[in-house]
């Protein structure tokens, strides 16, 4: 018996699956399962985070509902996965934020945006907030660069600390039987597997979302979202380097690297989340973890808002709307950062960690 009902169910299913093994060619979950005969909590959390929810094993399973064996691996692992985020959250006192995540994220986002708007309004006079500003340093008329950098660095560093602590707990829990540290080769393999979403492909035929036809486009939309996010992050990083090393202050012209990266990323962050949201709302109920709908949509919405407010800021930065839009954009990004360790964002971190572990196990098996 495990600590939770969902882990008991995951254990039951892995026992069924391990005596069948027909799905072993579909993804990483089943080969990893075959390396075990019994499943600890850590093993099940590991398998849950390896699962990419492509749905193929449900459609291919001769024992999925309405069969009395009631084998529904994608849904069971989705619930177990979401519960694992709370189980490993740091500090544990905040693990409850996963339970009503959509609500929590919305409140924090609203508060954060309000804080920036009212903060600007209180600290600078109205003519500045609603004035049109152009040329280098225009943004910093509303908030001094150093204050902006300090606030966002603090939020970002906190997010990293919380994530590192959470992943450490996860890694320890899934470490048996090899244990120890990750090697470079396994990390490189996991970067490739995660980067191409190797296991979101239904074993080659494609993924399932709405019905039993492999017509799912989530892989494309996830790529747009993920690489959009990375491009935006790169834009901010390049701009920071410009600022401190090159002494060049934002805003930059449209053809300059931070703006080009940010524009491309912003388009990804608008199109990708819309696609993912549409897919989510069409997902077959038998594959959907309804409890986590708020968390998933909350994260999708935050990414979409980041992209949208960023693009609007770019388009309208020479008008009087720049002040309020900057406040909104900064508010959204700030909220995104501080809620990172307590929302859907962590799925990528845990899945990547599980992929490292999987690569490590494969290597150790091949070497044995």
């Amino acid at each position, binding site marked *: 018996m495990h600590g939770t009902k969902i882990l008991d169910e995951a254990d039951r299913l892995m*026992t*069924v699956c*391990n*005596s*069948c*093994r*027909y*799905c*072993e*060619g*579909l993804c990483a979950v089943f*080969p990893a399962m*075959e390396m075990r*005969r019994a499943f600890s909590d850590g093993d099940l959390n590991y398998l849950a985070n390896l699962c990419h929810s492509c749905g*193929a*094993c449900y*459609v*291919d*399973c*001769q*024992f999925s509902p*309405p*069969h*009395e064996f009631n084998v529904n691996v994608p849904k069971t692992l989705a619930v177990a996965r979401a519960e694992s985020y709370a189980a490993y959250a740091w500090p544990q006192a905040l693990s409850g934020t996963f339970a009503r995540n959509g609500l929590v994220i919305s409140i924090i986002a609203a508060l954060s945006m309000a804080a920036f708007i009212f903060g600007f309004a209180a600290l600078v006079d109205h003519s500045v907030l609603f004035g049109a500003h152009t040329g280098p340093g225009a943004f910093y008329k509303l908030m001094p660069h150093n204050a902006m950098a300090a606030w966002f660095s603090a939020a970002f560093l906190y997010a990293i600390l919380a994530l590192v602590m959470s992943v450490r707990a996860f890694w320890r829990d899934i470490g048996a039987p090899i244990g120890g540290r990750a090697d470079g080769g396994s990390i490189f393999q996991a970067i490739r597997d995660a980067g191409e979403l190797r296991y979101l492909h239904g*074993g*080659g*035929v494609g993924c399932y979302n709405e019905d*039993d*036809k492999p017509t799912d486009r989530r892989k494309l939309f996830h790529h747009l979202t993920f690489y959009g996010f990375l491009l935006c992050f790169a834009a901010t990083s390049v701009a920071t380097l410009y600022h401190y090393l090159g002494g060049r202050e934002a805003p930059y012209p449209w053809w300059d690297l931070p703006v080009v990266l940010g524009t491309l990323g912003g388009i990804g962050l608008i199109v990708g989340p819309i696609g993912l949201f549409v897919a989510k709302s069409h997902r077959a109920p038998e594959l959907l973890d309804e409890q986590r709908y708020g968390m998933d949509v909350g994260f999708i919405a935050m990414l979409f808002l980041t992209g949208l407010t960023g693009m609007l800021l770019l388009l309208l930065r020479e008008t009087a709307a720049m002040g309020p839009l900057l406040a909104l954009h900064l508010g959204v990004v700030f909220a995104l950062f501080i809620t990172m360790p307590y929302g859907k964002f962590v799925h990528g971190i845990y899945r990547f960690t599980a992929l490292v572990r999987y690569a490590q196990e494969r290597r150790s098996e091949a070497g044995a």
Partner: protein
Amino acid sequence: MFPTSSYRADGMSSKYDVLVIGGGNAALCAAISARRGGASVLVLEGAPKFYRGGNTRHTRNMRCAHDAATEILTGPYTEDEFWEDLLRVTGGQTDEVLARHMIRESKDILNWIVEQGVRWQPSLGGTLSLGRTNSFFLGGGRAMLNALYLTAERLGVDVEYDAEVTDLVIEDGMFLAARVKRPIKGETAIRATSLVAAAGGFEANIEWLKQYWGEAADNFLIRGTPYNRGSILKMLLDKGVQEVGDPTQCHAVAIDARAPKFDGGIITRHDSVVFGIVVNKHAQRFYDEGEDIWPKRYAIWGRLVAAQPDQIAYIIFDSTVVTSFMPTLFPPIAGQTVAELAGKLELDPAALEKTITEFNAAVRPGTFDHTILDDCRTEGITPQKTHWARRIETPPYLAYPVRPGITFTYLGTRVNKEARMLMADGKPSGNMFAAGEIMAGNVLGKGYAAGMGMTIGSVFGRIAGREAAKHARN
């Protein structure tokens, strides 16, 4: 290349070129092949959509001849070797002309089936011994079926589920129409120029099994769906089609007694016999557990258990061998002493202790190797255990209760190389074809080798569809 006229299945007057009855591998290969041959095709599957496909749902591989290793097959498997394997498992109860034709055609099936959307993978974990001869379906039999259905529907084959065929109108060896009962549309007649019967055997029809097995059949578990009732087979034989295969025989393996009555599939099997002893409800051994190596030992135990009182037996072993075989769906029943285990199994503790003590005393020293016929054997008891005999002495003592699990039946309709049914007088039917388990007895008179059922289904399905379409065109 496809007919432009559209046919509707919901009217009394509907008429198709080819009517396929059944919904498994053979039926779908026939439907696709007939459609690609230019025919309009209707598939009537008696089961609901989830349970479509009969035994194909539970399969995982197909045995095809090939002259060289491929991406997924570790080495060549020639036509002659395939033929020798078939001859061996059937003990010669096969039609050589038909069998050799099937084996020749199986070579091209490896590619043809991929063109129909089915994907292969190397042999599954735990089945290395099949890596050279058998091609495994990526995702298993249901994935294979899903691919065939998607292809059939894309090509314009009409498919209906819950469509129970209640009668066939056959005159002078010619199929005219089928009466079909459907949940919403009610009972109607469907006419077609050609018929392909691919509706399997009667393994799920307990009443029919009882004709040969008596009341013992009540204790049989059926490994596939409850829809494999053999009603089409019975209609065809009643209406003058020549039968083939021993009606009293079925393929049976020992499966866990805790499995559901129907559709437990492959995961209820036990392959741990060689690692222990097998006793009946009187705690007595009844057969040499070490007689032969997989897969032969796998296939005989269903029949052996069926012959025991109440059709129940128990595989007994100890904690030292638990990791020697694949993990099982149902955990073994455990006891710290033999008597405790016997109590849980509701066996006579004294009798089980005596059986195990005598067995242990008879075990001779040897070097254990489960991959070969090793020299670990007993002396001085009956029956002997001739290989892999080791003492059962390390608690906890463990047991799996097992019953006969019926996979398929051998009775079928006789066909020729065109998959055309032969009538009782030996004349080929004008427009009736058969494929899959319903005619498997032509090449597989008895016994089995892994993956052969799917070979029969795909090869004869493809031929039947092609010939049925050809007939419809003329």
